[in-house]
């Protein structure tokens, strides 16, 4: 009887060892399946990712609290120490802005009159949602931010501004948080235009600090220093939003330096451009046509 029990115990331990090995293989397989499904943009993977994101992000929100207090104290001391020079700079800036404001008013009236003459239909107006940066991906292969959006109706695909210039787009939304893919990320593709020559292209991230413009005409007139703005092609984003300046043009490679300091952005604005900021809806509309 004792021998039988002993043999049974050995068999059980062998079975448990085999099961454990099968589980390990299954976990590796699962990782491979996720990778393959990501390649084909399977919605299941997106849903799993969103689910984990939604559950885990509140932990960061709690952990971030002490860091936020320290940062606020530092900012307060810094601001107080620079109050005099900041005041002088703001006075000068205000003087220039007043001058520009009058010019803009005149141009706006002129633009309206010309628009009426041409029967021009203006694009839909955008609303802005403010959001606070809570986390960064901190990875060489991923340039993303996690932002707190509260109950604002943020959708995937909406463009994100930092310091009044484009810094990325919303990739996923989970509860009160959203993930933003920065323009420097390899997955970021934004249709842009060179403001001076209206040469079109796609601003493509490459996981470095300097994204590049691709798919331009071979002899497009692009020079270092040119302002790059969104083209609005595809209707997903408003046109004319500044993105950056061309930093160099070498051997067909057009490097762009972003206007916003992406590494230091704390608050950002999400552009709600009506229903057309939703890529799924856009694709559906195109399919219907």
């Amino acid at each position: 009887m004792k021998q039988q029990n002993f043999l049974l115990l050995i068999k059980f331990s062998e079975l448990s060892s085999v099961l454990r090995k099968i589980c390990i293989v299954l976990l590796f397989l699962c990782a491979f399946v996720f990778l393959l499904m990501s390649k084909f943009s399977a919605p299941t993977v997106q849903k799993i990712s969103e689910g984990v994101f939604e559950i885990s992000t509140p932990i960061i929100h709690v952990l971030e609290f002490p860091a936020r207090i320290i940062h606020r104290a530092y900012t307060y001391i810094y601001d107080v120490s620079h109050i005099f020079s900041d005041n002088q700079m703001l006075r000068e800036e205000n003087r220039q802005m007043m001058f520009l404001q009058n010019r803009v008013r005149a141009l706006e009236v002129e633009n309206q009159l010309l628009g009426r003459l041409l029967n021009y239909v203006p694009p839909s107006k955008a609303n802005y949602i403010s959001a606070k940066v809570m986390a960064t991906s901190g990875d060489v292969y991923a340039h993303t931010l996690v932002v707190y959006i509260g109950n604002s109706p943020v959708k995937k695909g909406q463009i994100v501004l930092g310091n009044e210039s484009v810094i990325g787009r919303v990739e996923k939304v989970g509860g009160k948080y959203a993930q933003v893919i920065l323009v420097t990320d390899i997955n970021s593709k934004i249709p842009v235009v060179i403001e001076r020559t209206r040469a079109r292209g796609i601003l493509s991230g490459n996981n470095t600090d300097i994204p590049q413009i691709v798919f331009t005409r071979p002899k497009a007139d692009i020079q270092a220093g040119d302002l790059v703005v969104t083209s609005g092609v595809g209707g997903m984003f408003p046109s004319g939003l500044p993105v950056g300046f061309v930093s160099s043009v070498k051997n067909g490679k057009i490097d762009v330096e972003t206007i916003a300091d992406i590494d230091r952005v704390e608050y950002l604005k999400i552009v709600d451009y009506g229903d057309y900021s939703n890529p799924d809806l856009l694709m559906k509309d195109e399919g219907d046509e």
Partner: protein
Amino acid sequence: MSDVFAKLQVFLKNRIPFVASLLLIMIFYIPLNVDSYHYLSPYVALLCVYYWTAHKSELFGYFSAFLLGLVSDSYSSAPMGTDILMLLTAVLLIRFIKMYVQPTSFWGGWLLFAFVALIVYVLKFVILALYYERLFSLLPNIANFAVTIIFYPMIAYIMMQIQDKFLTSEISDE
């Protein structure tokens, strides 16, 4: 009643390596407003997985690595499954190496971590190059690898404190 409480206590204690790793990963997600933070931020998940697999492998296995990878992937724009695969490979590698080599000194542990990290970084580079069908710049990867190696003593010290404080008594394997 006390039996249930004792079992619950053991269960919670067994989850300390996973919870500590998760919290540490999350802390490193907090933005520091530092230039080029993407390159200067260490691969904390790998550091945690290495420490616990090397020092408390009975409490930190493949499933814990899988969950940490899942969280890490959900914050990243890299394809889902990348970090899961990297962390699982790290556990496999460390357990395999441990069968032949058991580092006794801190320096030995650090060197072994550098070796494991090198393999994981090369693997990640190759897999993502195949996925995106393009080669990435090597320099940011080398910089990030170096930062991860430099951070080993700090992470190991934190984990060692947690281990000494909460995991000194014998805990049954679950």
